[in-house]
């Protein structure tokens, strides 16, 4: 229903150092597509049998105004999100890699969108201004288990190097999620089984966020899961 957007040539030439969309990116887009009605803030079927919405939360379907993607890479996921949510939202995209920020800008132009890239480390510099304002937060983190020394690059390694348990980068973002999310905000996170997704749900649960696995897929050696969180 929602096609994969055109994206600038990540992985080639000027964008050689930018993460080329892969199974993890596509699974994340599939999860967003699956949640399309919820993300659009559709008020149809309020009391319908959508398994991930209980009655108490039915009234909280509100059209997003502010969307934030951490680590936007090629920009394909934000472009996809924009195709679902529409033009009446602000799309901010951060990346630590300047080439990725340019790639996101190109992808934005190709799709006649208004994605706003910022080169920064995770969400640094967007706080405190975005606190309590983010309606959709999306993060496909560097989740691969690597030695800790490989974490902290600002080039292509930053797209996969996750350090111990593949958690070193995403763990830094977790405390900020409850601060950033609006009351009805949603947070989508890509993980692999080695990251211990159940423990992640637990950790964020302690800070007041309800989390669940919304989609999983085996991609080669990786068992990917998309987790979705919202405020209780």
């Amino acid at each position, binding site marked *: 229903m929602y096609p994969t957007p055109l994206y600038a040539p990540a992985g080639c030439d000027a964008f050689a150092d930018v993460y080329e969309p892969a199974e993890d990116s596509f699974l994340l887009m599939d999860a967003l597509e699956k949640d399309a009605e919820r993300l659009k803030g559709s008020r149809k079927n309020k009391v319908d049998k959508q398994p991930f919405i209980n009655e108490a939360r039915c009234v909280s379907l509100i059209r997003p*105004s502010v969307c934030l993607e951490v680590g936007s890479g090629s920009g394909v996921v934000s472009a996809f999100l924009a195709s679902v949510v529409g*033009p*009446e*939202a602000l799309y901010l995209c951060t990346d630590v890699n300047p080439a990725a*920020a340019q790639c996101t800008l190109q992808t934005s132009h190709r799709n006649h969108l208004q994605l706003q890239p*910022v080169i920064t480390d995770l969400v640094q*510099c967007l706080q405190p*201004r975005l606190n309590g304002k983010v309606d959709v937060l999306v993060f496909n983190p560097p989740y691969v288990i690597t030695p800790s020394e490989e974490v902290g690059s600002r080039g292509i390694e930053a797209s996969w190097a996750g350090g111990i348990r593949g958690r070193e980068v995403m763990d830094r973002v977790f405390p900020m999620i409850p601060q950033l999310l609006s009351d009805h905000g949603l947070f989508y996170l890509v993980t692999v089984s080695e990251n211990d997704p159940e423990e992640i749900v637990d950790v964020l649960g302690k800070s007041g966020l309800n989390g669940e696995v919304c989609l999983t897929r085996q991609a080669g050696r990786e068992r990917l899961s998309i987790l979705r969180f919202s405020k209780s």
Partner: protein
Amino acid sequence: MKLLTHNMLTSHVKGVTKGYPLIIKATEVKVNELEFNSQFVSRMIPKLEWSALIQAAEWLGHSQDLPSTLIPDYENDEEFLRKVHRILLEVEVLEGCLQCPESGREFPISKGVPNMLLNEGE
């Protein structure tokens, strides 16, 4: 970098407590024409630090007689919304830098993208 984005950025230099708004020093500014969407503008206004927007517009020489405080009932004032649309989305800083108002540290803007990365120890 659009002024809408600038409105959301704060300097995170270590020890700085008053890092907002960042001072814009533009060397290349472009004005694009973008389709006016009154819904979008109305939805963004409550998220803005209005005085920071006015200040940013002034730095770029695009103040457009925008009021220094928000007018009530702006949702129904199309002329006003169009002025805001222009300043939020159509004026773009392509090259220049953002300066931390407290520490003076400059963050470059290159090809339309601000680089807010700090070096180790900053």
